[in-house]
């Protein structure tokens, strides 16, 4: 018989961002439990709200299949007495024994039937460990020091296999068939079955499906804005957060006084999004409208109290921001440079004033214009403003906005504004050349400084976010087409250079999707100019599927092996007059023809035609290897052939080291 299964772990409010990863772990370990016990065939689904993690499965066998275990006894040659002894020990009669033939001879054997365990018993034993084994970023204990740890206290447990409760206990809570509804709108105790579960929850104001909650929010917002000419600023991450902060979400539309629109949009949106988790609203022209959308965890706001409350909170927040904006203007950014001496960057690396001086020098070294130098000078001054102390996520942005109103000029303001970018892999690099330069210098300075004092990221520890900084450097170099020498940027620090290169490999492979052997081939031929490396990579990627490329790459690998086996071939003088007519001379002549064209393409950085031209050598190379014996008996001829191959390999390895290409 196959049965449905329902597990619900009832908890106090779990942080929204931890829920989905936990569900994945739960589903994974449950599936593992099934397959480890021969209970396959079930479809497992997981859902959650902040107060419950739910796992449902259909068609779970009610017991394990029976199995047979073969128990070997004495050899047949040991005789009847031994067989009787074996049978007695196994609790069977001699008639039940079989004789099997093994490489060692004939043996008595008894096939023991093992009855499959009941699924309910397996689950009862395994579920507590499975639940408490869910990994969380940070756990707590709640029943006392020796008690179990979980993300938040477990308050109820539902565990039903078919109609039966799978009995177990965690932290004094026994499993049962009783769930609990929405904190305020639902019943506290609700008897359920596997089948009635979702509907009973719905009646008690819990939508178990996150997708449905998301949809309810979106539909609700559409309804609120219908006919207003306003539209919500799309924010998928916020929508996701709110779906996992609510059991029964409902959006409401609030408004704020238009006079706050004099504050920069960045500030208003940050307050709404990060501090209050509101969606922003814009008008048809895309301008911020004096409205917001809050998402409640309740059914309705009949008296408008929730709206009024949220409006009042937002007003106080905006007043704070307006206060900081006004007070901060009383001291210009350029008058705050000295104050940076009081802000520690890192104990051994000094203050932000020290850091700023180094960044400015770096921008100069990188040939930055006056505007970039000015931006670098002012880049960290907003750390001393009230606005950034209150809204730390606006660092840089606030500096840029202040620079603009303080008449610093648009390039300078924009460069300050953008210089923390990219803050994540999804974020764009700075849009302006000065912004890219200041961002690059800022990140590089942090990297050089930290590596210089041994603060090098380990597997798990990276408190200064150096990986992200290095990733930013790589992206700015490649995507911003900044042709700086990576080696010079690393300033002689080999560990830092290797760290940057590692990030470059990661970027090309995992972000841009190049194959690892292509990345290896290209970087082996030169990594110092990543812009150039990126162009070579694109060319390799495009030429790779063409018919001549991989065979030629295989030939190059062969050439390399031949040269290696021959020992040093460098320095053999190549003498064309020693070439024999036929494939050898043909290859040489083709090589000469191709070489000049490839060189021309390379000078123009036209790597695709260069590679195509190289690939066109293939028939001559194949023929050469087919017909010509490199290891000729005459040492002079042999050396000459090695020299030819050496020249060929050297000439064409400047774009990529083809021997790194993995050929099938």
């Amino acid at each position, binding site marked *: 018989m196959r049965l449905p299964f329902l597990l619900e772990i009832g908890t106090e409010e779990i942080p929204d961002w931890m829920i989905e990863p936990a569900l994945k772990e739960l589903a994974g370990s449950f599936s593992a439990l099934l397959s480890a016990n021969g209970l396959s065939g079930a479809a497992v689904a997981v859902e959650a709200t902040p107060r419950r993690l739910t796992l449902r499965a259909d068609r779970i066998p009610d017991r394990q299949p029976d199995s047979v275990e073969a128990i070997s006894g004495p050899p047949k040659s040991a005789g009847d007495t031994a067989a009787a002894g074996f049978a007695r020990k196994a609790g069977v009669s001699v008639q039940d024994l079989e004789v099997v033939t093994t490489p060692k001879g004939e043996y008595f054997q008894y096939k023991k039937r093992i009855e499959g365990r009941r699924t309910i018993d397996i689950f009862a034993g395994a579920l507590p460990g499975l639940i408490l084994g869910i990994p969380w970023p940070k756990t707590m204990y709640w029943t006392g020091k020796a008690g179990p740890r979980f993300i938040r206290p477990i308050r109820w447990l539902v565990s039903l296999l078919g109609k039966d409760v799978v009995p177990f206990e965690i932290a004094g809570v026994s499993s049962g068939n009783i769930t609990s509804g929405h*904190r305020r709108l639902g019943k506290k105790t609700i008897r359920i079955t596997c089948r009635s579960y979702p509907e009973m929850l719905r009646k008690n104001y819990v939508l178990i499906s996150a997708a449905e909650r998301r949809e309810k929010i979106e539909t609700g917002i559409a309804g609120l804005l219908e006919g207003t000419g306003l539209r919500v600023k799309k924010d998928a991450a916020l929508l996701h957060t709110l779906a996992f902060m609510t059991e029964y979400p409902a959006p409401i539309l609030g408004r704020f006084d238009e006079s706050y629109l004099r504050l920069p949009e960045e500030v208003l949106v940050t307050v709404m999004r990060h501090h209050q988790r509101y969606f922003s609203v814009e008008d048809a022209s895309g301008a911020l409208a004096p409205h917001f959308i809050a998402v409640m965890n309740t059914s309705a706001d009949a008296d408008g109290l929730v709206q009024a409350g949220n409006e009042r909170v937002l007003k106080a927040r905006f007043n704070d921001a307006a206060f900081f904006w006004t007070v901060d203007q009383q001291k210009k950014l350029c008058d705050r440079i000295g104050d940076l001496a009081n802000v*520690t960057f890192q104990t051994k690396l000094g203050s932000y004033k020290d850091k700023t001086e180094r960044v400015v020098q770096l921008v100069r070294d990188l040939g930055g214009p006056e505007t970039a130098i000015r931006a670098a000078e002012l880049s960290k001054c907003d750390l001393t403003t009230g606005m950034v102390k209150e809204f730390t996520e606006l660092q840089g942005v606030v500096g840029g906005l202040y620079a603009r109103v303080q008449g610093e000029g648009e390039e300078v303001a924009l460069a300050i504004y953008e210089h923390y970018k990219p803050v994540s892999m999804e974020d764009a690099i700075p849009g302006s050349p000065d912004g890219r330069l200041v961002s690059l210098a800022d990140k590089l300075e942090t990297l050089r400084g930290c590596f210089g004092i041994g603060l090098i990221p380990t597997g798990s520890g990276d408190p200064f976010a150096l990986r992200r900084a290095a990733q930013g450097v790589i992206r700015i170099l490649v995507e911003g087409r900044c042709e700086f020498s990576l080696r010079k940027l690393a300033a002689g620090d080999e560990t830092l250079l290797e760290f940057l290169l590692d990030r470059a490999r990661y970027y090309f492979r995992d972000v841009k999707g190049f194959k690892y052997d292509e990345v290896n081939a290209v970087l082996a031929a030169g990594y110092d100019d990543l812009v150039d490396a990126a162009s070579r990579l694109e060319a390799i990627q495009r030429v790779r599927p063409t018919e001549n490329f991989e065979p030629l790459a295989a030939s190059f690998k062969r050439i390399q092996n031949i040269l290696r086996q021959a020992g040093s071939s460098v320095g053999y003088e190549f003498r064309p007059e020693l070439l024999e007519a036929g494939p050898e001379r043909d290859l040489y002549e083709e090589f000469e023809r191709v070489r000049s064209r490839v060189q021309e393409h390379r000078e123009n950085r036209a790597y695709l035609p260069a590679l195509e031209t190289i690939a066109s050598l293939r028939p001559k190379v194949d023929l050469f290897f087919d017909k010509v014996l490199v290891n000729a008996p005459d040492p002079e001829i042999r050396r000459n052939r090695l020299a030819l191959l050496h020249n060929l390999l050297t000439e064409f390895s400047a774009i990529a080291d083809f021997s790194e290409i993995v050929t099938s």
Partner: protein
Amino acid sequence: MDSFQQVIFKLKNYWSERGCIIQEPYDVEVGAGTMAPETFLRVLGPDPYHVAYVQPSRRPADGRYGDNPNRLYKHQQLQVILKPSPDDIVDQYLASLEAIGIDLHKHDIKLEEDNWESPTLGAWGIGWQVMLDGLEITQFTYFQQCGGIDLDLVPAELTYGLERLVAFLQGVESVYDIEWAPGVKYGAVRHADELQNSVYNFELADVSTLWQLFALYEGECRRLMAMYPGYREKRRFPVLAAYDLVLKCSHLFNLLDSRGAISVTERVGVIGRVRKLAVGVAQAWVEQQSIGIPQTAEVSG
């Protein structure tokens, strides 16, 4: 509409009915109700304890000369400690809001992740900030560690921000407009305190004197605690007096901070000095309790 003091009466009454001792505010300056010994020391050790009290909490850097409608140098917290935490603690808390007239069916309540941590006290816990219609009204924490010691029983700590909560209930936009008692505004009771202490903290406090005081209190605390290991009759040893000295240091640290006298670099070091004292006191207290000082379990219900 309830006045400020009526809300306090109701909350005290509510928690008193649920077995809490109603304590009075601690009489040494603290930055939060957590620092009063009724929390910091009582959460340690294996004995249950249930207590509620209002604690005026001083945060010198938050002073705004009485000008800002929401920021105060000194605000009032209603602190509740339930050790061990009852299983229905969240429901009990929500019912306390009903008890002061908040109809939860008409409002939106969310529990948002907010784990509390006090590096100065070597204490941390897991919990939430409770949001009422987008306003943070309470910090809810399951204590895990205090004075660097894992707690035997897990207490729930509820910290109500009384000014915010009552401003919300009374529908006023400035805390100074809160009605403290019928006909008496919060501003009439507290404005001078805010103004004058802001002037002192930001302008007139003498930094070198504050540093000297810090060193004196720290020194006295160390001198005292150094005597503890060799002190014979442990139950007589003034651990509680030593703790007051820790609180003095903590307050002086906050004052120095508001004067901008502590650079970010120094900060970590000074916090570490205070924590060292707090951890020493906590350890001595736990040991002292284990050798038998009459406990209050019978009073706490």
